[in-house]
């Protein structure tokens, strides 16, 4: 029995590893060029198709309207505005997303407190793990 459980576990691991982010479409909203550019590079290296990046609310809303999107990362403070309208649109469309921000969770409005959040500065491995979790490929730990 024990052996079979171990085998089963091993097989599961192999299966999840086999499912990749390859080809999934990711929207990046981030007003800081270098951060946006780093994110793009890291996630493209996972085979993702990056939509954007964009740094403004209006541009993001236009992309959501026009492009198919599977998952998104949002910076909270976009310099000239907060990202809340974008979050609202994504929620309305059932697109999972996470926040990459310098703010702590408590500063977010109530209705966004359940959204996963990574605090800057972040590690690209952590972002990839979080995006995989949003795509249902991994459990959030």
């Amino acid at each position, binding site marked *: 029995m024990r052996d079979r459980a171990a085998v089963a576990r091993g097989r599961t691991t192999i299966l999840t590893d086999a499912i990749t982010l390859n080809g999934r479409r990711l929207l990046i909203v981030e007003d800081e060029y270098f951060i946006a550019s780093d994110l793009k590079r890291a996630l493209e290296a996972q085979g993702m198709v990056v939509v954007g990046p964009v740094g403004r609310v209006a541009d993001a809303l236009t992309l959501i309207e026009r492009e198919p999107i599977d998952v998104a990362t949002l910076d909270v403070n976009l310099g000239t505005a907060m990202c809340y309208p974008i979050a609202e649109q994504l929620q309305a469309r059932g697109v999972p997303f996470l926040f990459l921000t310098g*703010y702590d969770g408590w500063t977010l409005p109530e209705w966004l407190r359940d959204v996963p959040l990574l605090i800057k500065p972040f590690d690209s491995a952590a972002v990839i793990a979080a995006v995989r979790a949003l795509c249902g490929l991994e459990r959030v730990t």
Partner: protein
Amino acid sequence: MKAEIHDETDLLETLARKNAVLQAINRIFHEALGATSDEALGRLCLAVAEDLTGASFSFMAELTPARDRLHDLAISDRAWTVFRRAWPEGAEQHVPTHLDLHGLYGRVILDDASLIANDPAAHPDAIGTPHGHPPLRSFLGVPLRRRGRLIGVMGLGNRVGGFREIDREAAEELAPAIVQALGGKRAELALRESEDMRRVSMELVPAMLWRTDQSGNNKMSESQWADLTGQDEREAADWGWLEAVHPEDRVATEATFRRSFARDEPLEHQVRLRDRHGAYRWFLMRQVPRRDEASSATHWFGAATDVHDMHLLEERQRRLVAELQHRVRNILTVVRSVFSRTVEAGGALEDVADHFRGRLDALARTQAIVTQTASGNVDLQNLIRDELLSVGVADGEAVTIAGPDVPLPPRAAEAIGLAIHELAINSVKYGALKCPGALLHIAWSTDGDRDGKRRVRLTWTEKGVPALAISPCRQGFGTELICEALPYQYGAETRLTFVGGGVRCEIALPLQEEGRPF
């Protein structure tokens, strides 16, 4: 029969005397109301006692708390008149204090018993009289007691014909009324003082006070609640005051108060109250139960303090901390990114370190500009000179800087500062600032873009630089900053070319500062 007539006369006399005492007691209580101090009441009582006994003057004194001395409470008006006559220039106007327990009045205290001395000078306790005191020909001393406990003495002097037993009896019967009147006056004065204290406190403390009974009926103090909310007493009664509570706070407030009532517990609750103009302000509401002897609450005392300004300050501080965190974390992320790019560009470790240090300094300068000039603008010419100076270049024959006064909003200054730094570093390493005889010209002007928004157009032109096989600037961090980051982040239009003779860079940057959140 004779005996009966005699008895009847005695009876009538006794009745007359009792009646006189009753009238005297009446007078004391009647006139006590008007007395403004216990000393004034003391003088009144002494006048009544003099009238009753036929004494010429009198005083009364009270034992000190330590009970080893006497504190003079009052000297009668008649006594003062006699003193003043005997002592015309400025007789002592103050009632003496802390008298030793000696003399005839001391004997009354020590024995806790009345004393008649119709030949005072011959009495074993005689100590004579102070200067200005009229000669003492007869003395009647009566103890003053409160609930059976000795508290002082009343001394009466100089009755024509000396004091009789009936005078002693009359004085003894009057004494309890005097003690009671004095006690009542003191309680009244203390109450008035505490009432004054309460009124002053209410004026000084920015709080609304209330009293609530067991059923939750409120009795708001004075008109504070009405002044604030515009609700009258009737409207505020029976939980009607909840109408003045912010709708979002109402349910929680009612629940908190009901819990406090149900559990006999003090409460502390922050709440927004609507003022008569419809604006909400934060108040701290506190309420404590008052208990009876069975220790269950009979009613509650409450106070609401205006904490609105404090609330706004706290909120502002929270937001400032959040903003600071945001900025620090963001810049750390950018620094991390700039570091990776600088390392990726390769080169000797020393060069990488130099580049990174230079960029870090440029970032620090622009950060300082952004934070220090949050409301103001940055002078473009100064900004350019500072960036050139940071790489050891001043304008002169080889370097010319020309343009109108342009106040740059902070974000534009940030963008141009970083771009100028990259251009200057490149120029020092490979361009006009390295080659003798080469020229650098930096110029700018302002114009409107297609939408008519004002923008600054800056050109960086190098001339006389020998052609390089490979210009590292083409692939490096500087190129990415100017060609990618500036358009992405600041909405700039940029052009970077390597024409014969050196670098040419054009940057058109919107001057319109879009409102940043917070």
